[in-house]
């Protein structure tokens, strides 16, 4: 009977994990470029135990397989990269990706991470940096004297040269794409790292096949749907309670068994 306690405990653990990730989603409902993640549960393995059964033809007791499940497990924590809503801002360096793709960001340790949070600005040296001050992987420097910095749908960063009055191209923001973006590993700071299961990053120009367009003066909102998260939270809470009820009832049954020899 102790096995049933284990089944109940697997339910508590799985639902706890779901609630953890739901809480994280809800906390990030206002984080630009945030992508929802979920703890995906599946049933655990099954084992056959031999039990006595009646063979109706032979009128005899025979052995039979009785299949017993072992509870529930968290099979993975996939992240869903559905498009978030696009909110306009006044800042031309706020960039939203409409469609697939990630901004490649160079981390201080030299590695490249990928994210969809498009809150860019200029550091004192004129480099384009993200909200946490990290450079784009192909660094773009905005000279001090130019005005009207803008980014077009293909990721070309343009500015007006005040001496000539002509627009000049400062560089191009490339986008990264993955065969399986669900396989990316979140490293915090709204950024992801490529893994074996995501496949290597493929860089390409925004607006070409497989890559989304860049929209300047807009931010992609979190793709968390608050109503959906609350519904899931209620479901997970009830499932947690049900698992707790299993444990309690089983404990009561064990109490009865203990009370038998008196």
């Amino acid at each position, binding site marked *: 009977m102790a096995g049933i306690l284990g089944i109940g405990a697997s339910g508590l653990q*799985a639902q706890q994990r779901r609630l953890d990730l739901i809480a994280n989603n809800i906390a990030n409902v206002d984080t630009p470029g945030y992508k929802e993640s979920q703890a995906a549960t599946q049933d*655990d393995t099954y084992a056959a135990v031999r039990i006595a059964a009646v063979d109706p033809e032979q009128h005899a007791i025979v052995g039979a397989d009785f299949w017993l499940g072992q*509870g529930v497990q968290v099979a*993975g924590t996939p992240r*869903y990269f559905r498009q978030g809503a696009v909110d306009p801002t006044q800042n031309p360096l706020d960039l939203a990706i409409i469609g697939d793709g990630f901004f490649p960001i160079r981390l201080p340790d030299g590695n490249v991470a990928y994210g969809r949070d498009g809150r860019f600005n200029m550091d004192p040296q004129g480099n384009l940096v993200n909200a946490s001050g990290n450079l784009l992987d192909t660094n773009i420097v905005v000279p001090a004297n130019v005005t009207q910095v803008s980014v077009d749908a293909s990721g070309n960063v343009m500015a007006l040269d005040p001496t000539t009055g002509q627009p000049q191209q400062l560089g191009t923001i490339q986008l990264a794409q993955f065969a399986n973006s669900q*396989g990316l590993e979140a490293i915090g700071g709204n950024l992801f790292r490529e893994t074996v*299961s995501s496949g290597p990053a493929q860089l390409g120009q925004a607006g070409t096949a497989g890559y989304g367009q860049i929209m300047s003066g807009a931010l992609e909102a979190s793709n968390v749907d608050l109503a959906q998260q609350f519904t899931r939270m209620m479901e997970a809470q*009830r499932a947690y309670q049900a698992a707790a009820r*299993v444990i309690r009832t*089983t404990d009561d049954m064990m109490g009865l068994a203990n009370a038998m020899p008196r």
Partner: protein
Amino acid sequence: MIRSVYTAGQSLVANTARQLRLSNNITNVATPGYRQDVTTNGYFDGLLLSAMFPGEGAVREGPIGVLGVQMGVQNGPISLEQGPLQETGNPLDMAIFGDGFFTVQTSTGLEYTRDGRFSRDPNGQLITLDGSQVLGNNGPIMLPTGDVSVTEQGDVMVGDRVIDRLQLASFAPTVELKKVGFNRMQPVDPTATSGVATPRIQAGFVEGSNVDLSQSMVEMMSVYRAYEVASRTVQMLDRTMSLSVQQVGQVR
């Protein structure tokens, strides 16, 4: 009287087994694609007691009568009732509305599932949560880059191009299925063949667990009470035996 202790004891064992089944159902009440296990009570009602009679030349065996002895449990059919469809908005989530299973290639052969939370692996293959290949009519489904959509008939399209049709399997009601974990099932008899199912596929949805929580809770209460009755019966029989051993035939 000793026999009745075993009868009551068997009821304890059987109700423990039912409780094991129920707990697995209840902990999977929120597991997409999970199918409820059903336990049926088998009553061992048909046991014939026989006796040996001395006959002419040989010992003859003859029936005394029927004795109802023990309670047992049996695998019921896995409940294939439709689960509720839940919208997720993820293009690679698929739900089956109607009969049928997705066919999955695993290391141990073909397995069948109603859990349609799929994704794309680095090579572009459509895979399940644990990385097994989802099969189409032409084998594993390879998705080139692009926007994936799935029609109600199960045609997987990338852009306007049909890549393959999901291999949707059905089994005759006589084929007994067993679960293998990861929300998958297999026929108990490996030679059993599957037919082609024609359910409606809903992309962007997952099918929830078909566990009926209120029914399971009620069943758990009844299991608990049946267990309680059996344990009381054991205690009562023990006291009765104690009387017969210690008091009947006592010489004062």
